[in-house]
């Protein structure tokens, strides 16, 4: 049990009321602030009016949105790969096999094309 709230606790309570829209007089009375602390609630009211929530610029919001979307996509791809290592290995193996096949075909085609030239050069 905390029988007597400290000055700082009462002030915090009054600030909460001011932030909720109460007038400084009502907040001070409700929190039971003494006469020396009451002026601080007037200051709190002035601070509340002087420090508005600042909207970020639409350009910045759009850029950051795009960066977060990209980060989500790459995280999801990585998470998928980690969840399905077998599929990742199969995908890699198939990709490598296709690559080897295409390369072998290209080498074979180029050798077939260049063969008549070699005969002609004899």
């Amino acid at each position, binding site marked *: 049990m905390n029988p007597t709230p400290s000055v*700082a606790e009462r002030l915090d309570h009054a600030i909460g009321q001011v932030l909720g829209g109460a007038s400084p007089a009502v907040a001070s009375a409700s929190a039971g602030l003494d006469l020396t602390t009451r002026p601080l609630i007037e200051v709190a009211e002035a*601070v509340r009016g002087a420090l508005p*929530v600042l909207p970020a610029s639409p350009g910045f919001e759009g850029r*950051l949105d795009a960066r977060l979307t990209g980060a989500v996509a790459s995280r999801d791809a990585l998470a998928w790969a980690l969840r399905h290592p077998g599929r990742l290995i199969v995908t890699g193996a198939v990709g490598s096999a296709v690559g080897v096949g295409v390369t072998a075909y290209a080498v074979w085609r180029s050798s077939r094309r260049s063969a008549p030239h070699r005969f002609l050069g004899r």
Partner: protein
Amino acid sequence: MGAVMGDPDPDLVDVRAAQVDHSAFGTLYRRYLDRVYGYCFYLLGDHHDAEDATERTFLAALAAIDRYRDQGSTFRAWLFRIAHNQLANALRARSRQRTAPLDAVMEPMAPGDPAAELVQAEEARTVRRAVALLAEDRRQVIVLRFVDGLSAREIGAVIGRSEGAVRVLQHRALRDLAALLARR
């Protein structure tokens, strides 16, 4: 991060969704972008630096979202803790506190008497200059409380202090501000 009991976490459902499907992180991003950006701007005093710190904060939060656990702390306290660390890095790299006062804030102009609006805008500028003169830990408490609406418990989780220490810092910050504003 230490447990912070007692603050209900309104973001928990969205956090769970983002842990299952990372694309759901966008909901949390849109909810907190302006607040995190405001926190960074009021501490760094420069829009470009604030954007850089904000970007790093959200990328780090996305990278770590799977590891977030509901251990009595709120998601927003966890998020602002990341922002706090990014700010510490930025301030260390800069090796001095601010390059510009907080005058770059656009005043919300209410329809009415232009002369009264000018007076109000000037008063707000004076308060912001006073906030900029506060010691860094006190300024952080003021910004997290008044701009971002965090409770003393959440602020304690962000800056690594106890709830009671945060309330004392808040009290001292307002006392400092009262003295600075009385001198103008």
